[in-house]
Every structure is written in C-alpha cells, then in structure tokens.
C-alpha cells in the first residue's frame, strides 16, 4: 500500500512536470490557445421560443428570446448570451444576411431542416473545426438551432463559435420543432 501511494505521488509529479512543459510549449508555439478560456457559456435552452405555445402564433415582442443581447463582448462571461426569435430569423433569411447552422445529427438534419441551414452536428464538433473556422466573416450574423427549446446543442455550438472569435452568434431557441410548426421554409427528405 505504501509503495502504491508512493508510485501515485510519483505519477502526480510526472503530470505536474508535463503540465509545465505543456504550458511552456503552448506559450512559444505559433497557434497557442489561452490558458484560461474567457468566453462565457451561452445558455438559452429552456427559454421562451419567442412564440405563444397556445396559439402557435409568432410573438416577437415578449419573452427573453425577444431581447437579444450584444455578443462577443471583450469582458466575456456576463452579457454574452443571445437568442433570436423566429421572426428575427425569418427577416434575416429574407435579407440573406445570416448563416444558419443546424446543430443536430446528420440523419435528422437530412430528414428536415430550416431552408438554407448547414449542418454542424454537435456530437462530432471537433471534426468540423476547419469548416467552422472558415464559416463566415468574424462579425457575420450566425444563428444556431437544434431540436427545440429544451435542447442545448445549439447553445454549446454557439459557445464554441464565440470562442473561435465569431462576435455575432445567436441561438434560435424554438429550433426545428417551432419552425416546422409554423410552416416556414424547410428542406429535407421528409419535408413536403
């Protein structure tokens, strides 16, 4: 037992030395990453979808989703949260000024998604790193969505996009569920 604990302590020492070497390497390499990641998590899951559930009528004047905040603030953390309502998304689509990202898995995306949306499945996000890096201009409007108000894939994706330096990222909390219910433009194998 004593030997076991001594080896464990030795193991921790190796890890500490390795961490120091890693920090030194990170500080001298070209593509270093900040040791402390300052961008705060996006958290909109469970918020109002910007729609009256009882009537199904779009309502872009009430609820937290109707008051998007400014994103990408240098402060990080507080004030980085932002969501887009269905009507805002529709308006941006009509103007052609938005990149829409579906964060769901590829098979459900193929069945049906918001017209013009591209698919970056959250479950395999690192595979899409290069594609995300070249997605749009850093200040371009990007809206992420997933299944519906309780799904947080889009929040996670929005957080990663902000970490990558995109400053105008929002989440459409209603997601595919509300978009489909509203009968707005959609594409996919199971879309009429």
């Amino acid at each position: 037992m004593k030997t076991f604990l001594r080896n464990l302590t030795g193991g921790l020492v190796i890890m500490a030395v390795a961490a120091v070497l890693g920090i030194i390497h990170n500080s001298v390499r070209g593509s270093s990453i900040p040791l402390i990641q300052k961008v705060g998590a996006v958290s909109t899951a469970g918020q109002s979808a910007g729609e009256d559930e009882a009537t199904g009528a779009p309502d872009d004047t009430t609820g937290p989703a109707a008051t998007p905040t400014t994103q990408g603030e240098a402060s990080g953390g507080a004030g980085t949260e932002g969501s887009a309502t269905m009507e805002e998304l529709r308006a941006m689509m009509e103007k052609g000024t938005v990149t829409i990202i579906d964060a769901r898995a590829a098979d459900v995306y193929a069945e049906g998604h918001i017209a013009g949306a591209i698919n970056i499945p959250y479950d395999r996000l690192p595979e899409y790193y290069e594609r995300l890096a070249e997605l749009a201009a850093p200040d371009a409007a990007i809206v992420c969505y997933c299944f519906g108000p309780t799904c947080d894939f889009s929040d996670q994706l929005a957080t990663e996009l902000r970490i990558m330096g995109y400053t105008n990222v929002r989440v459409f909390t209603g997601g595919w569920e509300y978009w489909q219910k509203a009968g707005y433009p959609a594409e996919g194998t199971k879309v009429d």
Partner: protein
Amino acid sequence: MGLLRRKEILFFLRVVVGAAFVYGAYVKILAPQKFAMSVRSYQVLPIALSNFFAIAVAWSELIAGACLILGVFTRQAAASLAILLTVFIAAMIVVLAKGLVIDCGCFGPEGSLTVGWLAILRNLVLLSITLWVMRADDGSVSIRRLLPARR
C-alpha cells in the same frame, strides 16, 4: 507463467499502452483547439479551465507514455496513466448519466469512439494494464539497462 514469459508480456503491454498514449497525445498537441473543444463537449469542467486541462492531459499522456515505453520511472508513469484513465472513466460515466451523445475525443477527432460502454470498457482494460505495470514492473526491461553502467 515463467518469469521470462511474464516479463515479455509486461514489456509488450507497456509498449502497446505507451504507444497508444503517445499517439493520442501527438494528435492532441498538434491541434489543442480541437481537443479543448472535446473537453468542453463533456460539460464536466468549467469552460475557463478547459484549455489548461487539455494541455495538461495531452502532455501528461506524452511524457507518461514515453516513460512507459522506455522503462524510465515506469511505475510512476503507469500511475500517471492510471490517474488519467480514472478521470476519463468518471467523466464518461457523467456524460452517459446526462444522456449526452458525444465523441470521446480519445485519439483526436478522426477515428474516435462515441462515449458509451465500449469506450468505458476500453479504458477499464487500459486501467487494469497500468495497475498491473505499477505492481509488477521490476525495471528489468528498460532503457537504463541498455546504457553503460555508471561507476
């Protein structure tokens, strides 16, 4: 099991496990942003710590894996990997409990495994090997033995 046979098996397992960790570390060190992304996808650590954790884990895997292959501080290196594997298994159990479906990020984004029982089983096998090395390695197969003895 004869002494020589046991030694050979132990050495073989050391090299296989060490090489797996060195390869995994190489991929992670090459693209730390992607590995940090994988770390965040587990939703276990605060985002602020994800980059530091990614760097520390990747380099621990590299150094401990190399030590395991070379037979330098073998038992301590095996202990490092056992600690890492225990953390990985715990994180995977949390991910399963949360119902998240994510890539494990074990060997970088390509050719990885979804977090699930198979990934946990793989880590348990690796953990058993590292614990065996911690217990059984006697330092008889190591690079030190190949170097001329100091007088």
